[in-house]
């Protein structure tokens, strides 16, 4: 029996965001909610029709045609559009050469304008994150809530408030230009960084949803790299970082419900294609004089991604990158990672020294990974009593059963 391929993964999610982008372009940024409503109607029409008639040959074109007709209905039906109806309808005309994909450049502009709108500086950070996921990435409210361990009404409230605020901005639906672009771009990158890290963090929330967060952050940052105006070196650096990190996700997924530290991962499961893409972005990130924390994090991640084993890793280069990173953006969390790298690069002694210096840092008192790393190092240094004390502290702070199980095992091993 012939077996046709299933629908492209996340087709609806990605088409939803593209359709919202195109309709928001037509209606205007202040009518984001209307664009979303029209798109949801189009998706539900597909849900009612496709089970019977089968999936159309070009699903994206089908969805665009239906969404466009529904948008034209709104223009006809709603008297408040009368004055602008003609102009709006013209922007909904199918571009030459194809009903949907014909004008790739315009579509990219629209998609990116939508990302910038979602990360608008008038919105608080958590609203930027939620709106980016909902609108630019096509997540459902319940999916966002699951990913961030929040309740659905909380997320829904946040989205309503964010859209209300945007409506009052009367912002043009454009990719920011001139002097404004740099700051707005940073804001977008920070949001995508947060989204990716939320997905990448071990032991939080449900696995599949979290892998999707990484996938969407990567997709959106790569969209930014495709447009000359936004393809800044730091954008490529962030794309490289995401690629290198995401390449390791399959190794992690191979043992669901377990926390795998780097030296336990089966490196043959790392995604070579993502590593290759990461290297390409990393190369592009070196064009220009800009050196950002994203560059250094990408460099560190590249050392891991390229190493055949833990022993063959370029620890000297990793330690050097951490030193620069720490000077550029001081953070106790980065300091902990640096100390862990020092153990490999310069020996246990140096690592212990660096960790000791951090022990009274107020920011680290409630930071579990510090106490885990500290405990592991003390164990290796032959001080089981102090090691047990540190790991017990890590256990109290541990989030999620997999990590707790792991720490309990370590404590048993120490006797």
């Amino acid at each position: 029996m012939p077996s046709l391929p299933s629908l492209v993964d996340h087709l609806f999610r990605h088409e939803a965001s593209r359709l919202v982008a195109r309709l928001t372009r037509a209606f205007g940024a202040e009518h984001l909610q209307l664009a979303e409503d029209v798109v949801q109607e189009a998706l539900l029409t597909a849900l009612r029709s496709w089970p019977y008639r089968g999936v159309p040959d070009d699903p994206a074109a089908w969805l665009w045609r239906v969404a466009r007709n529904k948008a034209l209905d709104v223009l006809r039906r709603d008297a408040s559009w009368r004055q602008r109806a003609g102009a709006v309808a013209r922007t909904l005309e199918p571009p030459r050469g194809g009903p949907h994909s014909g004008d790739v450049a315009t579509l990219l502009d629209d998609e990116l304008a939508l990302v910038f709108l979602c990360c608008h500086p008038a919105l608080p950070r958590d609203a930027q994150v939620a709106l980016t996921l909902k609108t630019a990435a096509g997540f459902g409210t319940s999916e966002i809530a699951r990913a961030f361990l929040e309740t659905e009404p909380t997320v829904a409230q946040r989205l309503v408030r964010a859209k209300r605020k945007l409506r009052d901005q009367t912002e043009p639906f454009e990719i920011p230009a001139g002097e404004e672009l740099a700051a707005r771009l940073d804001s977008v990158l920070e949001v995508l960084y947060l989204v990716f890290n939320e997905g990448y963090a071990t032991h939080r929330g449900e696995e599949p949803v979290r892998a999707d967060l990484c996938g969407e952050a990567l997709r959106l940052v790569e969209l930014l790299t495709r447009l000359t105006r936004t393809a800044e070196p730091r954008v490529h650096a962030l794309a490289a970082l995401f690629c290198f990190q995401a390449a390791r996700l399959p190794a992690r997924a191979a043992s669901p419900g377990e926390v795998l530290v780097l030296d336990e991962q089966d490196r043959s499961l790392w995604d070579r294609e993502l590593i290759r893409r990461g290297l390409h972005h990393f190369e592009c990130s070196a064009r220009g004089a800009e050196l950002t924390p994203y560059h250094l994090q990408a460099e560190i991640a590249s050392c891991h991604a390229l190493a055949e084993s833990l022993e063959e890793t370029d620890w000297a280069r990793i330690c050097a990158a951490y030193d620069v990173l720490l000077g550029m953006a001081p953070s106790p969390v980065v300091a902990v990672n640096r100390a862990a790298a020092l153990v490999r690069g310069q020996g246990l002694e140096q690592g212990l020294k660096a960790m000791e210096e951090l022990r009274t840092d107020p920011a680290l008192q409630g930071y579990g990974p510090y106490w885990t790393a500290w405990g592991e190092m003390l164990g290796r240094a032959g001080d089981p009593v102090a090691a047990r004390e540190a790991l017990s502290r890590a256990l109290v702070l541990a989030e999620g059963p997999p990590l707790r199980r792991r720490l309990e095992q370590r404590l048993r091993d120490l006797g």
Partner: protein
Amino acid sequence: MPRYMLLLHEAPATGPAPDLSPEDIQAVINRYKAWRQSLGARIQLGEKLKEEGGQALRREGSAGKPGKVRILDGPYTEAKEILGGFFILEAGGYDEAARLSESCPHLDFGWIQVREIEET
């Protein structure tokens, strides 16, 4: 091979649209797609019937004294369920037709009536 008509009954879509995410919608469509693929060419046709509108025609009066035809609009407004659409399926007999229909995802949303098409 005998042909069967599968009549798919379901609750009419009333009230606000369900809050389904794009991913949820794709998951449902993928289930139907997988079902159809498992049946290959045995499904000859599938059509969705429009939910809005619809008319019912009935001749008034009795057999001996026929009256005029009355047309009722929108027979669905009060209905608890409607005919959502249909499939034409090839099967060796009722048993096989039922067996092939059993895995149709529609059974999670409504019920299916199977009727053999009389070939002359």
